[in-house]
């Protein structure tokens, strides 16, 4: 009974946090003040772009939700490093390639796929694919969704119309900042998860938690797809 109650509380908390997402970081773009700053840059600005990259990751609920899903059942540090490396490889390719190659993409559609990645990972964590009887490669999935997460970062940077002068150094700085932010966020998530795993009922709540995660993914998808059709 106690397990049940705390599972409901956990789910309710997740719903509340999910409901507050649009309030706390609408669209998860770059804040107007940061955007104004970027417009004033005319050359290499390693420090600011490192910071902006890290900030984008730490405050990026879509990336964070996906990371929670990815490492939810990774108990060994070796596995964490492997999966996070795949994710990093994926998003770095498209972040650098998308901005430097000036690849056009609709930010809403990319963000909808990022929402899908959250729901997908949650479904996988719930044992959904095992039950359905298909076995998609989990490593390939993290890598491929990593590509979309990087493309999402690229579309946000492209909206800023970055100056060509110092572009490569600035984008690489931004990318390194993203990884620094990811490291910080992962540390916090891992500490929380590791503590939670020592508690009785982690596995029982895991299903409910991933259900909530899936709901968050669906919500992001609906939010971005609506944005695509409205704007």
């Amino acid at each position, binding site marked *: 009974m106690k397990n049940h109650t705390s599972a409901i509380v956990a789910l309710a908390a997740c719903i509340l946090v999910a409901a507050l997402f649009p309030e706390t970081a609408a669209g998860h773009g770059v804040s107007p003040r940061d955007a104004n700053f970027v417009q004033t840059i005319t050359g290499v600005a390693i420090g600011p772009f490192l910071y902006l990259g890290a900030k984008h990751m730490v405050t990026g609920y879509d990336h964070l939700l996906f990371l929670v899903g990815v490492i939810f059942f990774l108990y060994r540090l070796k596995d964490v490093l492997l999966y996070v490396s795949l994710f990093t490889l994926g998003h770095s390719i498209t972040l650098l390639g998308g901005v430097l190659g000036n690849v056009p993409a609709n930010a809403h559609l990319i963000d909808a796929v990022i929402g899908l990645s959250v729901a997908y990972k949650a479904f996988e964590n*719930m*044992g959904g694919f095992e*039950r359905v009887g298909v076995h998609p490669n*989990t490593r390939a999935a993290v890598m491929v969704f990593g590509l979309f997460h990087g493309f999402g970062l690229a579309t946000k940077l492209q909206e800023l119309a970055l100056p060509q002068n110092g572009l490569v150094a600035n984008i690489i700085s931004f990318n390194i900042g993203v990884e620094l932010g990811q490291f910080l966020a992962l540390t916090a998530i891992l500490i929380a998860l590791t503590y939670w795993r020592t508690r009785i009922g982690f*596995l*029982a709540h895991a299903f409910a938690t991933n259900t909530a995660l899936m*709901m968050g993914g*669906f*919500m992001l998808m609906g939010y971005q797809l*609506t944005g695509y059709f409205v704007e």
Partner: protein
Amino acid sequence: MSDARDIQPVASGAVPAAIPATRGLAKATAIALVAAAIILVTLVLPAEYGIDPLGTGAATGLIGLSQAQPPPIVASESGPVRPQPADYRVDTRQFTLEPFGGYVEYKYELEPGAAMLYTWSATGVVNFDFHTEPEGLPPSASDSFERGTASEGRGSYVSPYAGIHGWFWQNDEEDVVTVTVTTAGFYTGAKEFRDDGSTEDYPVQTRVLPSQGSSAP
């Protein structure tokens, strides 16, 4: 989630902890979908896009988030831009002043704070006096703001109080003089006082027909 708890954990790296019952999985997925749809439709869409099919955005006030505009800049009495109490009007009059003392008075009805731009010119030198007749007060309450002898004048005027405000022009010379006055401002009417003791109220034009700016050569 009782369906989910009947299952046995599987210990492995990235593989799920357990394989759930089909019913539990379907139920959880459906709950996730429905919860996401409810939050999306009742809260997120009204707040982000102003789409409010159930009226929940209006009920919670979230609809305001999607309609937020930059705060308006309100013109104030002390700022360089000032609101005006009446419609914008323009007016042009011409008066003929007889020699040796012929005069006319021409005044506009202005609310407190109402502004007016003016220019006037005469075919000869005249005595003039720009003065007021405050509403509801005896003639002794009149203020004279500018007085002199000239053949033209131009400027701006902001009415300090309600009443009629304007010029007295007098021709002391030996030839007939024509005075032409043109104003633009926020007056509600105009009044003429002639030297034969008669008065006349004039309606003032509320609109100016635009000239074709784009067809200028």
